């Protein structure tokens, strides 16, 4: 039931952009994005609920294509503080309440 995330890892310079993708084979109700820094708990970034919905959080935004069961996280003009592992979490329509997370994307931003 795990969604598929890509890429596995991204290395950026400060100021560069990145896109992280998440897809599921199941019909989705919502997509969640979290960031986890080393040794810490995952921290919530945003939830997307509706088809085609886009949300923003500072210079981090995301889209959700309900028809394709895909979501993308966009990191614009990356900062050092963006480094960490990003997880997408999916809530499947047939099993509302449960959250399944992907394998994560490790993002490293260098000065």
């Amino acid at each position: 039931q795990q969604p598929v995330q890509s890429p596995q890892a991204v290395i950026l310079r400060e100021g560069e952009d990145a896109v992280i993708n998440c897809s599921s084979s199941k019909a989705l109700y919502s997509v969640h994005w979290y960031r986890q820094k080393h040794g810490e708990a995952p921290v919530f970034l945003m939830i997307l609920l509706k088809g085609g919905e886009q949300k923003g959080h500072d210079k981090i935004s995301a889209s959700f294509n309900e028809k394709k069961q895909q979501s993308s996280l966009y990191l614009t003009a990356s900062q050092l503080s963006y480094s960490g592992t990003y997880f997408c979490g999916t809530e499947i329509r047939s099993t509302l309440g449960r959250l399944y997370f992907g394998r994560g994307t490790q993002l490293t931003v260098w000065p």
Partner: protein
Amino acid sequence: DVKVTQSSRYLVKRTGEKVFLECVQDMDHENMFWYRQDPGLGLRLIYFSYDVKMKEKGDIPEGYSVSREKKERFSLILESASTNQTSMYLCASRDTGGGTEAFFGQGTRLTVV
């Protein structure tokens, strides 16, 4: 400030021991989760509980059981710990209603020797 608290940050147990991992949330959430986090495998759902005494298996329930006698507390039990259960265990909770965020505990790093 919302809180999910796991009883131990680090735990070392011997093979064959019965192990209890405790998680308490103070947000009156109906839903609670136990995940296992391993490098390269992400967060894998072990068990999910949507109410007191109600539980459902996740993707990797083998070798684990859970207990939820009170709304705020969700326990993960390793009946007979094995070395392949050495991992980081994360507890989470969230409110009922689709589209609510999950709150995570700090995690328990369990080593089985």
